[in-house]
């Protein structure tokens, strides 16, 4: 956390070498997030790239208060929403398999992934941010712009639904 804060400060001080470090630090997480939220690998790569472009464009306006991870995920989330909006007009099917999304398919995990995919959108997003992206509940609340209590209740409800479906 301290290292990330220092990296952000160095970029503010015009040390451009740290911009590379910042992007390298978050690229994998953001790319994985984009894979979950876009129809295919190519689009996910574009979405990840667009996320970092937007981050760089508005970096001067960003005020660091220890929430950069939530901030960059929020940018990625908006980029993915924009992509879906565009794709909807091209009438692409949203229900694509994980293999098409660019993930390695593991048979044992497939059922769980299917169950997550069948969750209502709001619940699915919380589950993905919590378990696929390993974000804290507080960070999820920041990204989704909802109270922490709502995140907790949605997560609990999603887990209950998954348990029920397993049984």
């Amino acid at each position, binding site marked *: 956390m301290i290292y990330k804060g220092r990296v952000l400060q160095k970029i503010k001080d015009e040390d451009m070498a740290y911009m590379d470090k910042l*992007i*390298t630090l978050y690229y994998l997480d953001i790319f994985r997030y984009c894979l979950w939220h876009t129809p295919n690998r190519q689009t996910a790569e574009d979405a990840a*790239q667009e996320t970092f472009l937007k981050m*760089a*464009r508005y970096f001067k306006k960003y005020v660091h208060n220890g929430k950069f991870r939530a901030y960059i995920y929020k940018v990625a989330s908006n980029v993915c929403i924009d992509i879906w909006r565009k794709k909807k007009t091209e009438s692409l099917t949203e229900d694509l398999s994980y293999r098409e999304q660019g993930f390695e398919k593991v048979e044992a995990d497939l059922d*769980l992934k299917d169950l997550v995919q069948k969750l209502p959108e709001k619940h699915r997003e919380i589950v993905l941010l919590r378990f696929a992206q390993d974000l804290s509940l507080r960070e999820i609340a920041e990204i989704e712009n909802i109270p922490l209590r709502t995140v907790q209740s949605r997560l609990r409800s999603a887990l209950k639904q998954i348990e029920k479906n397993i049984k």
Partner: protein
Amino acid sequence: MNKKLCLDLKKALNVPVVYHGEQLEKAISLANSEYEKHRSRERIGYVEFLFQQIPFMGRRIWIFQGSILILMWLLLTTIFQEDFKYIAARHLPDLLCLFAIFITMTGLPFLCRSYRYKMQEVETASFMSMSGLLSARLIVIGLGDGIFLLAVSLVTFSKVSISTALVIFYLLLPFLVSCCGCIFILRSSRSRYNVFACEFFCLLILSLQFLFHTSVPQAYHRAALTGWVVLSVFFAAVLAFQIYKLIVKFNRICVC
């Protein structure tokens, strides 16, 4: 929460992802150039912009006003010498009116030019709104005017024994009236001859003042001070309204 389920979900969803190095390189290079592009277009605040206007145009106006102030000071010291003191004291309202009108006239060419040409290049470069630009110019000109009027008042106090309030209102009222008229002319049309119309209006006010002082000298006595105060307050309010309308109209013109 079911801990086993949580662990299973994490194992199933937090899968390792392989990404292409060249994609990361591309994202880095594009982000760097995007950052560079937007860094040079950083916005500045209004106060910072106002300070930047001082070397840009404030300096020229203030040098102009300062040189007129020096000339006026030389004139004052000459006419307040013993030989002219009696005449000067009798014609003090005319003299102060002359200074007030002159100070209005000094700022007019700068203001008219800004208003006429809309200062669009500056707006594009600085990202300031048109109203911001015009108000910055009005502040710079107004600051110079204020210092000028204060200096004239101080010189008058030091040379002639006259009521402070009278000196202030002898200066303030013609200044306010001339400003109101000039801004009204500016608002009414965008003609290239606006500056001449404004200067002519100022000279007209000056002539009217001489005429009024000659025909109604009792209006310049201490007993008429209330009238001066009322008129000054009225014209100050009119001026504030005129400036507001000028800025609003300026924005509207630029939107079109």
